[in-house]
């Protein structure tokens, strides 16, 4: 690994100063992606700013009014096991539970998964269908960014230099909802996704679908027609509505792990399965 200096600030302003300062800086939370980049030279900071000494960035998960707030240092293993996440945001619990191995999930944070902005990030589709926001602090103060506006492209986010993520907020569900996360990998066990998606179905028939690893960034699409969940609608009408939702997928021919044709075929299969399972969950049946 190339040498760098290591700083462990105790406060947010100190961290922001380091990240926005003259030296090139990289923020370190769990490190499960960053340290790989430091070792292979794809990330070459002069200073690594460890955020784990900052008490203002929480490790926990709590309800604040009408939102669930996941701290910027909360790790995947804790998110996957949290009873409130499992009750109201099951697709996020399912996604967090398949990120890497136990060893990775004990370190990797949800905030880090977002900031790395991998097109295949498993937690991104769930956060998109749940309409999550990213709470950000930087030199110009604090702001909230909708997750859909946060992703810009592979490895690129809406963060400006000096900004860091302090929390992720999810609005508590207003009514009955069922949601599911599904993914396709090359093998059982520990692998990156060839397709990763989440579906949320609301009581009125509204469908929110988000998919990743089939384009430069995860995509959110919605259908308010009710056709997809209406048992009375024709198979052709449902298939046509689903095709409209999946039209934004654009897997690259140079993509890794799977061909574009395979990804698109599996995207259809997984979207149909997830939709059926989400409807079952909304109705309180095991899915």
């Amino acid at each position: 690994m190339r040498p760098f200096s290591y700083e462990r600030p105790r406060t947010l302003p100190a961290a922001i100063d380091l990240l926005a300062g003259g030296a090139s800086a990289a923020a370190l939370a769990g490190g499960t992606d960053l340290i790989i980049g430091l070792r292979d030279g794809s990330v070459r900071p002069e200073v690594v700013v460890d955020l784990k000494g900052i008490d203002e960035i929480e490790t926990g998960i709590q309800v604040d009014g009408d939102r669930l707030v996941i701290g910027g240092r909360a790790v995947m293993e804790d998110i996957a096991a949290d009873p409130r996440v499992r009750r109201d945001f099951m697709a996020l619990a399912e996604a967090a539970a398949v990120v890497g191995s136990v060893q990775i999930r004990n370190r990797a944070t949800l905030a880090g998964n977002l900031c790395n902005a991998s097109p295949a990030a498993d937690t991104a589709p769930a956060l998109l269908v749940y309409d999550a926001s990213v709470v950000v602090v930087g030199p110009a103060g604090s702001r909230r960014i909708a997750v859909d506006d946060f992703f810009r492209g592979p490895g690129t986010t809406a963060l400006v230099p000096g900004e860091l993520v302090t929390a992720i907020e999810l609005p508590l569900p207003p009514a009955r909802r069922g949601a599911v996360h599904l993914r396709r990998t090359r093998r059982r066990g520990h692998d990156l996704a060839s397709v990763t998606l989440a579906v949320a179905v609301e009581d009125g028939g509204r469908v929110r679908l988000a998919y990743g690893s089939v384009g430069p960034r995860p995509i959110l699409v919605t259908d308010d027609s009710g056709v997809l969940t209406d048992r009375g609608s024709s198979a052709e009408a449902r298939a046509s509505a689903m095709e409209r939702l999946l039209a934004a997928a654009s897997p690259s021919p140079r993509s890794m792990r799977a061909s574009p044709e395979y990804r698109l075929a599996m995207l259809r299969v997984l979207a149909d399965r997830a939709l059926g399972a989400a409807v079952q969950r909304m109705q309180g049946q095991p899915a």
Partner: protein
Amino acid sequence: MTEPYPIQVTVNGRMRTARVAPHHTLLEVLRDDLGLTGSKECCLVGECGACTVMLDGRSVDSCLVLAAEADGGEVLTVEGLAADGRLTALQEAFLEYGAAQCGFCIPGQLLSAHALLTTHEHPTRADVEEGLAGNLCRCAGYQQIIEAVLAAAGAGAAGGTEGRRRDGAQDGPVPSAHSDRPDPAATPDAQVAPQ
């Protein structure tokens, strides 16, 4: 600007201090500075688990943790499992079930299994498969490793002191090496480990 960073870490119950390079990992410091070579370096990208240790009570890939990050923390490596020359029940089970072939992955497998048994007193086979999914074994000894973890759990491995002494002194009758071991031929393929 890249001066050594002083750290104080409790390793296997013993307080250690070191001045580490900021770009050195916990794995490098354990192996090269503290001489604890049980944890192995292999893939260096968090896929193989050969470097697994426990940091503050949770299993981590020590190749993906900077040594500086461990400052103030508590580390358990494979060298810290046995106490007073007495293997843990988990280590005994690995021996009895032939779980170690070349042995390279075993320190990591043991630490992942140890971590699993601290949170799952009675793990299912699926729990063990998931708990060890981040530990690869190129000898493909998964069947024996999983059986060993299940057997250790059945014997109450979480207590950690039920093993017998390795210095020849026995506390009592040695259990049969084959007791409670299921007939491997009776295990359908579908139950075999994922990798």
